[in-house]
């Protein structure tokens, strides 16, 4: 069987499209690369959906933590503490348990015990908590002068936030947020590993990597393939976030832009 056929058979296997049975013997390198790559679709899905949706909750949490209203502040602080303070591993366990109990209450909750929704929800809260803390830190360091200038121009409330505070907040937090995004994509490997069951052998990249490690009894081929995919994914994230970063900073003079880049390290999550 040529490698092209393998791609046709297994390229979308993780979504349930293509050959129903996984390869059982005479494993080729091509099969491993294709199936693990197919599983990467899930990692990318989980990462993207929780990153994009989590961004909004993160902003809300950061504002909540900075709020003068005690209830809002306490609520945001607790959400951030709960999700930043416990291992994702344990969060998945409790979420799965909770969704199963909710299923008994109403059929509305049925899809939540499947990974595509349940795990995405956990990752959404998890990344929102981490990014919320990053955004809060950046919000606290928005220069007072910028806010005062906005006041002087007669901006207040939503327009002031939208046009002055928010862009600066993003600019300041972007390097740390990049790191958070990398961590988030890495964390998606935990979904099927310890959290949610895999249905009909549709799993993520780690699921297929351990399938092959289990069948060939050789961990030294599938896991490095998985590692290679993630290095590529990480490079892609760094690239995309770098483009956004340049856009966020394009109004700054050259030398200050350079200085901002230097701060990337210390702001790691």
């Amino acid at each position, binding site marked *: 069987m040529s490698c092209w056929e393998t791609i046709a058979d297994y390229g979308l296997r993780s979504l349930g499209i293509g050959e129903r049975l996984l390869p059982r013997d005479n494993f080729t390198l091509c099969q491993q690369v294709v199936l693990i790559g197919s599983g990467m679709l899930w990692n990318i899905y989980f990462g993207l959906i929780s990153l994009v949706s989590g961004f909004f909750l993160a902003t809300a949490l950061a504002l909540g933590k900075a709020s003068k209203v005690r209830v809002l502040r306490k609520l945001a602080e607790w959400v951030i503490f709960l999700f930043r303070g416990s291992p994702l591993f*344990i969060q998945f366990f409790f979420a799965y348990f909770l969704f199963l109990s909710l299923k008994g209450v109403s059929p509305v909750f049925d899809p939540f015990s499947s990974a595509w929704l349940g795990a995405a929800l956990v990752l959404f809260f998890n990344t929102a908590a981490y990014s919320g803390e990053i955004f809060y830190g950046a919000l606290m360091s928005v220069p007072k002068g910028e806010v005062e200038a906005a006041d002087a121009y007669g901006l207040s409330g939503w327009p002031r936030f939208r046009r002055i505070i928010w862009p600066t907040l993003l600019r300041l937090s972007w390097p740390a947020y990049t790191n958070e995004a990398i961590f988030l994509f890495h964390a998606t490997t935990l979904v099927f590993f310890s959290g949610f069951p895999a249905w009909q052998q549709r799993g993520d990249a780690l699921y297929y990597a351990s399938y092959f490690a289990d069948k060939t009894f050789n*961990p030294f081929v599938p896991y490095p393939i998985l590692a290679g995919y993630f290095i590529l994914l990480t490079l892609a994230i760094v690239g995309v976030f770098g483009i956004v970063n340049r856009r966020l900073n394009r109004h700054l003079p050259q030398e200050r832009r350079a200085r901002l880049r230097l701060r990337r390290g*210390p702001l790691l999550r």
Partner: protein
Amino acid sequence: MFAFCTDPETLSGLSWLSCYLTTGKHLSIYVSVGTVLLLLAITAPAALLFGFGGAVAARSPLPPLAWAGRGYIAIVRGVPDIAFFLFFVIALDQFLEWLRHEWKCPDWEGSVWQGSDFVVCAEAKLPLSTAAGWVHDVYGFAVAVLTFAIVFGAFAANVLYGAMRAVPRAQLETAEAYGMTRRQIFRRILVPQMWVYALPGLSNLWMVLVKATPLLFLLGVEDIVYWARELGGAKTPRFTDYPHPDWRVWYFGALLVFYLAFTRLSEVVLARLTRRLARGQATLGGAAQGGSA
């Protein structure tokens, strides 16, 4: 543990619980809490050492060294820790044994790879097959620490690399003007100054490290998660004196409390450390007062 525990079936309520919570198996989970704390205590400085080495290498003017340092940071940071743990420990163990094999048994004929088997001479086994059980445990633990240190060393290297570059150039130039050599500048100015820039990143790294400890069981160390699963699973009366249904929720709940409490404690300590380090340092706040080294 207690004298009245000989016949648990007759017990109920608190006395049953006190017996249940002091079985040999439960003592193991209490010991494993210590294991996790010990791992953190050793890994943190070890990772810092790896990170320091990585950062210095990445800054090196020698291209091969710089590539090695940057490659280490980029590759290890780019891979999910879990994927790394799944094959790296076995590889590391084999590498160490192979080194010892080359040293101890130079006359060995044939390859260390026999089919799918990895075979080294008996003198090179790590630990020796004659060693006591606890030696094996310590060795397994040490390999786990080393693996953690390598992984988190890459993250620490990234933080320290950034921190070294964040030290104001003016300070280094001043030192140069005073006639200090490169080495002197590095030791007396750069390293003492960089910590304050590195601390926020290192604090975060510590938090991430704490939350990575549930992956220890992948490295063959019986940690709290292993025992929580083992103890929490449903037990039938045939195999235990303390049968119970699925109690994993309670055990994982205890783990949750443990991690939250540990995070809170870390936050308080780190906040205090940050304030101490920032005092009189050339940070944004301190710079206004003219900052001294």
